[in-house]
C-alpha cells in the first residue's frame, strides 16, 4: 500500500473493476503473488479470473502430461497435438494464461511442492491447491501457517456437479460497513486439519450433507492410496462401508 500509482495502461484496462473494488485494492492486487497447484476445471476458471484481475504473478504447478481427458473441462488447453504434445498441464495453461493479461507474470514450477521448504511458500500471498491428496493438503497448509507473513490457503475439489472449497486466512482482520459506521472485525481461521477434524455431531444442523460426503470420499481415497477423483462406481461398496463407519464414529452420543 505504498504511494505508487497505477499506470495509465492499468487505469484504462482495469477501469471497470476499479469502480468495483477501488484503486487501492487494484494496487495491492498488482503486487500479489499466487501459487496454483492442480490445473483442472475450476482451477482453470480461477486462473482466468485472477489473471484478468491483474495480480502481480501466478505460478502454476502440475506436472501431469496433457491427455485428451484433460481437454474436457479446461478451456486453456487447445486441442491441437502440436500445442500440447508432451507438455505438462502447467506448461500449456501457462502459455494460454499469459495471453489474457500481459501485465501478469505467469510461470511454471515443477516438482512436488508438498516436499518444498517453508521458504518456498513465503514468496506467495495465496496458495490454491486442487487434485491433491489429503496428506499433501495438510502438509502444505501447515507450511503456510508456519510463516510470519500471512499466506492464504485455499483448496478446491469438484466431483461431477458438486464442489467444495476450503479457506484458511489465518488471523484475519477486516472492516465491515454497517449503515454509517465502520466496524473492525477479526476472525481466527482453523487450519485445514483442524477444520475437518471437527466431530460431525458438533457441526451446525444446516451444514450441507455434501460436506460429509466429501469427507467420506476424501478418507476413502486417502486410505486406498488413490489420486483424488479416481474413485469409481466399482468402489461403491467400499465407500458405503466407510460411510457407515464414519457415521458411527462421528455421530455417536
Amino acid at each position, binding site marked *: 500500500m505504498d504511494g505508487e*500509482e497505477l499506470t495509465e495502461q492499468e*487505469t*484504462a*484496462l*482495469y*477501469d*471497470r*473493476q*476499479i*469502480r*468495483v*473494488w477501488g*484503486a487501492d485494492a487494484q494496487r495491492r492486487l498488482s503486487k500479489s503473488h499466487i501459487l496454483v497447484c492442480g490445473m483442472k*476445471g475450476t482451477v482453470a*476458471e480461477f486462473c*482466468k*479470473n485472477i489473471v*484478468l*484481475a*491483474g495480480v502481480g504473478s501466478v505460478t502454476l504447478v502440475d506436472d501431469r502430461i496433457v491427455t485428451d*481427458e484433460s*481437454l*474436457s*473441462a479446461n*478451456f*486453456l*488447453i*487447445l*486441442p491441437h497435438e502440436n500445442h500440447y504434445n508432451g507438455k505438462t498441464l502447467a506448461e500449456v495453461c501457462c502459455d494460454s494464461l499469459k*495471453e*489474457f*493479461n*500481459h501485465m501478469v507474470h505467469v510461470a511454471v514450477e515443477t516438482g512436488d511442492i508438498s516436499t518444498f521448504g517453508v521458504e518456498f511458500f513465503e514468496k506467495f500471498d495465496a496458495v490454491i491447491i486442487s487434485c491433491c491428496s489429503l496428506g499433501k493438503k495438510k502438509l502444505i497448509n501447515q507450511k503456510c501457517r508456519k510463516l510470519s507473513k500471512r499466506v492464504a490457503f485455499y483448496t478446491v475439489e469438484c*466431483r*461431477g*456437479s*458438486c464442489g467444495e472449497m476450503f479457506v484458511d486466512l489465518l488471523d484475519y482482520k477486516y472492516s465491515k460497513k*454497517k*449503515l454509517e459506521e465502520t466496524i473492525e472485525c477479526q476472525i481466527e481461521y482453523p487450519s485445514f486439519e483442524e477444520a475437518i477434524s471437527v466431530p460431525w455431531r458438533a457441526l451446525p444442523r*444446516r451444514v*450441507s*450433507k*455434501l460436506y460429509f*460426503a466429501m469427507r467420506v*470420499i476424501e478418507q476413502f481415497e486417502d486410505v486406498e492410496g488413490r489420486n483424488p*477423483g479416481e*474413485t*469409481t*462406481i466399482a*468402489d*461403491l461398496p467400499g*465407500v458405503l462401508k466407510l460411510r457407515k463407519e464414519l457415521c458411527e464414529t462421528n455421530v455417536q452420543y
Partner: protein
Amino acid sequence: MSSEEQLSAIKGAKVLMVGAGGIGCELLKTLALSGFQDIHIIDMDTIEVSNLNRQFLFRQSHVGQSKAKVARDAVLRFRPNISITPYHANVKESRFNVDFYKEFDVVLNGLDNLDARRHVNRLCLAVDVPLVESGTTGFLGQVTVHLKGKTECYECQPKPAPKTYPVCTITSTPSKFVHCIVWAKDLLFAKLFGDENLENDLNVRSSDATNLSEHSEDVFECRKGEDIEQYGRRIYDHVFGHNIEVALSNEETWKNRNKPRPIYSKDVFPDKLTKENGKTEKGSATDDVSAMASLGLKNPQDVWSLAENSRVFYESLRLFFLKRQKEIGSLTFDKDDQLAVEFVTAAANIRASSFGIPLHSLFEAKGIAGNIVHAVATTNAIIAGLIVIEAIKVLKKDSNSYRMTYCLEHPSKKLLLMPVEPYEPNKSCYVCSETPLSLEVNTHHSKLRDFVEKIVKAKLGMNFPVIMSGASIIYEIGEDLEEDMVAIYAANLERALSELPSPVISGTVLTIEDLQQEFSCRINIKHREEFDEEREPDGMLLSGWVEAPVDKNNNKSIGNGESTSSALSMEEIQEGEKDVEIQGTSESAENVTGKKRKLSEVSKGTIPDHSGLPDESSRNQNQLEKLDVDDEDDELIISNDWESLTKKKRL
C-alpha cells in the same frame, strides 16, 4: 432424467445468445464446454479496451473488431468441432423476426439495455420459445427464466426506468453532484460544442419560464477580436458568476435552501491565465489532446481544487477550439472522449463548489457522466454458469426445477446465491396477457404525434407500430410504405386526436401492433379536459400499464442518458442491511402484485397467502422469507446417485 438423456438434449439443441459482452463471453465458453454444438450469437458492438478486464475472449489486438465474430473465433480454438454463427448486427433489425426465432430451442440474453430486452421478450413470446434472462452489475447479478403461459414474462414485473431529474433542479437548485454533471454535460457542453439548433435550458430561471432576452444568445458566441482566453473567462463568468447572481435574486427559491455563491474568474485567477496554462503540449494527434496532460495533472483519481478545476475548464475549452474546431457544433458527449470528460468534470466541479456540493475526481465524474456500469469477470462467470444450468433444465422440460437465481453481494442467511421459484404470469401484464390499457387524454388538444412519441414508442416500447382505429390504419412506421400513405400519416401526426379522419374520441378503442415483435395491444381512449401541468406534463395518463415506480417530480425532467445498469438492483432484491430505495407504487400496485402463485403451488393446487400486499418491497420480503435452504438438494447426495459424485464426467 439420466445424464445420457441430458447430454443428448444438449447436443441436439439450437441456442440463440443475444450479447457477446461481459456475460456473453463467459456464456459462450460455458456452453461450449458443456457440450452445446449449435450456437448463434448476436452483438452489434465492437471491442474496446475497457472490455478486456472481463471479456476474456478478446485481446488488445482485437480492439475495434466485432465482438460476436471474435468471440466465435476464440471459442472455436478450444472447441473446433462445434458450430457458432455470429451476427454483427442490432437484435432489433427486421431480419431477426419470428421466423428467425422459432428455429431455436432456447434464447439466452446477455444484454445491457432495457429496450433490447423487451424486444427479445416479445419475440420469444410470439414464437413460444423459452427465454433465460440475466444481468450483472459489479458483484450483483441475476438469472431469470421465462416461459410463455407458465411463468412471468420479462415485462410482467416493472423494471426501473432510467433516473430523470426535474429541469429546475438541474438549472437552478442542484443538491447532488449528479445534478451538476447533468448540467455540465447536457446544458453547458451541449450549448458550447453541440448542435446550436437544439433546445437548451441553460439560461432558464426557475421563477421565470421565459428565456432571458436575445442578449443571452450572444453570450456563447465568440466576439470579434476576442481571443480564447477572453472567451473562456467570459463564459466562465457568465455561467458561474452572472447566472448565479440572477438565480440569487429570486429570494423565494432560497428560503429553505443554502444559497450558492457566484464564482468569478478574477477571484480564482487574478492574473492572466497564460502564465499557468499552455505548458508545451506534445504536438501530437487529436487523439492525445488532453487538458490534464497539458497541465501536468496525472492522476484521474485525484480530486482537484477549485483552482485546478478552473484551469482544466479553460484549458479544455481552449484545446477544443484550437485542435478540434471542426467538430464544434456537432459534438455529443462521449465518455471515451478524454477532453470532453475533462471539460464536464471541471464544469460540474466548479458548479458543485458554488453550491456547496462535494467535488469529485475525474474518475468518479466520468463514471457518472458516462453511466458506466462497474463490472468484474467473476460475477459474469457465475451468472453464465447459472444460465447454462437453467437452459439445461429448460431443454429437459424440467419445469419444477426452474429457478430465478439472484447473486448477492453480501450473504443473506449465509448464502450468496438465492434461488427462488418463478411466479405465474401476471394476468394484468399487457405484454403477455393482452389486457387492454386505458388512456386518459384531451382528444381535442393532444396530437397524434404526442401519442406516438410518448406512449407508443416510449412507454410501450414499440419500434414499428401500426395504429388502427377499427379497420382503418391511422398511422404506421415501416419500410416500403406507399408515398400517398406516408403523406397521409405525416398529416395525421399533426392533427388532434379528435380531428383525425377516423376520429379518436372517448370510447374509441385503438389497436396497436408491432409486426416485428408480433405484439399487439388495445387501448381504450377516455377523454379528459384538464391535466395538471406539473404532475401530468404530457397531458396523457396511461393506466393498466405496469409502470416502474420512478420519482414523479414537478415539471419536465432531464435524464442522465440511458441507464445501462444490467442487474436488477435494490428495487428487486431487498437486503437487510442495505439502504434500499423502497418506492411505493400507486395505482399500478394491484396490477403488479395481485394474487400470484409460485409454479410449484400451482401444480399442488394449494393457495398461498400473498393477499393484500401493498407494494413491491414487501412482496420481495415475502419471497425472501419463504426461501429456505433447498433441503431437497441435500438429499440428492445421499441418494443412489453416486455416479455424479464418483465417475469422472466429461462436461
